C-alpha cells in the first residue's frame, strides 16, 4: 500500500483510495451506486439533498457521503432498510416543500427528482404539501427561472460561479423561503453579469431553470458530470 492511501470497506468490499477522498467518490470509483441529487462531479460538494446518506460502523449517526472524507478502517454501509427509509423521507420533504407537479412541468420524464422518487418507491408524500407561488422570472431572452420547482440543490449557483466564473446566480433567505436570485435579486433580463451560457439549465436536475421553447432532453446533457468536467478541464 503506497503512502497516502486509505484502506476501508464499502458494503463489505475492501477498497483502497487516496487520502482525502470523499466516501461518495470512493464508492463511485469502486462501482457502488449511491443516489444523489445535488452532487455533480466537477463542482464543489454541497451536502444539501441528503440522498447520499450512508451508515458508518460504530456511529449511530448517518453521514452525507459527498462531504465525509474516508479514513482508515471505516466500514460503510450504503444500502440498508434504515437508509432507504431516511432517503424516502428526505425526498418527500423536498417534494412537499414546493409545487412539484410533474404533469405540467417542462422536465417531465427528464427530471432527476421524478426518477429518484420512482427508484426509491416514493408513491406519495405523507406530509402536507406547500403550494408555493414564488415569482417566475421569464425576463431573460430564453432562460426561465421557476422557483416553484426548485429543490435548492444549488447546482446552478455552483456551475455559474465555479465553471462559468461569473456568479450571477445565488440564494436569498433561508429554509422554505430560500430562493435562487439573479445578481442582487434583479430580473434576469436586466442582469449585467449573466453571459447567457445556459450551464445553469444544463445542470438543473428538475424544471426550475430551462430554455424556453426547447425540449429539456436537448438542453440537458445526458451525462451532466461529463459536461461539467469537460468544461472544467478546458
Amino acid at each position, binding site marked *: 500500500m503506497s503512502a497516502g492511501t486509505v484502506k476501508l470497506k464499502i458494503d463489505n468490499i475492501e477498497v483502497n483510495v487516496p487520502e482525502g477522498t470523499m466516501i461518495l467518490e470512493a464508492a463511485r470509483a469502486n462501482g457502488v451506486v449511491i443516489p444523489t441529487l445535488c452532487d455533480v462531479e466537477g463542482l464543489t460538494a454541497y451536502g444539501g439533498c441528503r440522498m447520499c446518506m450512508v451508515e458508518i460502523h460504530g456511529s449511530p449517526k448517518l453521514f452525507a457521503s459527498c462531504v465525509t472524507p474516508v479514513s482508515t478502517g471505516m466500514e460503510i454501509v450504503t444500502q440498508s432498510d434504515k437508509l432507504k427509509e431516511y432517503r424516502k423521507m428526505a425526498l418527500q420533504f423536498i417534494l412537499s416543500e414546493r409545487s412539484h407537479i*410533474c404533469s405540467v412541468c417542462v422536465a417531465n420524464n427528464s427530471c432527476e427528482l421524478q426518477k429518484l*422518487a420512482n427508484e426509491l418507491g416514493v408513491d406519495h408524500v405523507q406530509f402536507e*404539501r406547500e403550494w408555493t407561488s414564488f415569482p417566475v422570472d421569464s425576463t431573460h431572452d430564453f432562460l426561465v427561472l421557476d422557483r416553484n420547482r426548485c429543490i435548492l440543490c444549488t447546482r446552478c449557483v455552483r456551475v455559474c460561479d465555479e465553471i462559468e466564473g461569473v456568479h450571477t446566480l445565488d440564494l436569498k433567505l433561508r429554509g422554505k423561503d430560500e430562493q435562487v436570485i439573479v445578481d442582487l435579486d434583479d430580473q434576469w433580463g436586466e442582469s449585467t453579469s449573466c453571459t447567457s451560457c445556459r450551464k445553469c439549465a444544463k445542470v438543473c436536475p428538475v424544471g426550475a431553470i430551462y430554455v424556453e421553447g426547447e425540449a429539456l432532453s436537448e438542453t440537458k446533457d445526458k451525462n451532466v458530470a461529463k459536461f461539467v468536467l469537460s468544461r472544467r478541464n478546458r
Partner: protein
Amino acid sequence: MPDPAKVRVATIWLSGCSGCHMSFLDQDEALIDLAQQIQLVYSPIVDIKVFPENVDVTLVEGAVANEDQQELLKFARVRTKILISLGDCAVTGNVTGLRNSLSNSPQATLTRAFIETADVNPQIPTDVPALLPKALPLHEVVKVDYYIPGCPPPAGLINWVIGRLMRGLPVNMEGRSKFG
C-alpha cells in the same frame, strides 16, 4: 346478482379528467380476465346511484375539491376494505391542486376563474357543491391503503396492482411508478 366468489370492486371519479378511468379501461383484453374475477359494484361507468356496502377494493381518481366529494369519499372509506389512490390528482393534487397556489379562499379562486379570466358572460356558478379551500390529495382526508401515481397511471400498472391484491401478495411500487 351478487356473486360471493367475486371480488367487489368500485371506482370513484372526483376532481380529475377521467384519464385514470380511461387508463383502467385501457387494460383492454386483460379486462376480460378481470371481469371473471370481479364484480363492479359502483363506478361512473355503471348505473348505480348509491355507494354500496361491503366493497373489497375501491379505486379513486381525482383530488378532493368540494364538499360533496369529501362526503362521498368518507362514505366510501367506511364501506371499503382497501382504498386506492388512483393517479396523480388523487395522490398529490396534481393539476386540480394548481389552484392551491392561487389562494386559500374558495371565493377568490372562483372570482379568478369565472370573473377575472372570463371572456364572455362573467358569473360565478351557484348551483354546484361548495369548493373546499384547497383541492386535497385523498390521504389528507381519509386513510389510503395503496397509491398508484401517474398522469395517468399506465394500464399495465393498474392491472398489476389489482392482480397482486387479489392474490394477497405485497405491493411494492419501487421502480414501477412515476409521478406525471
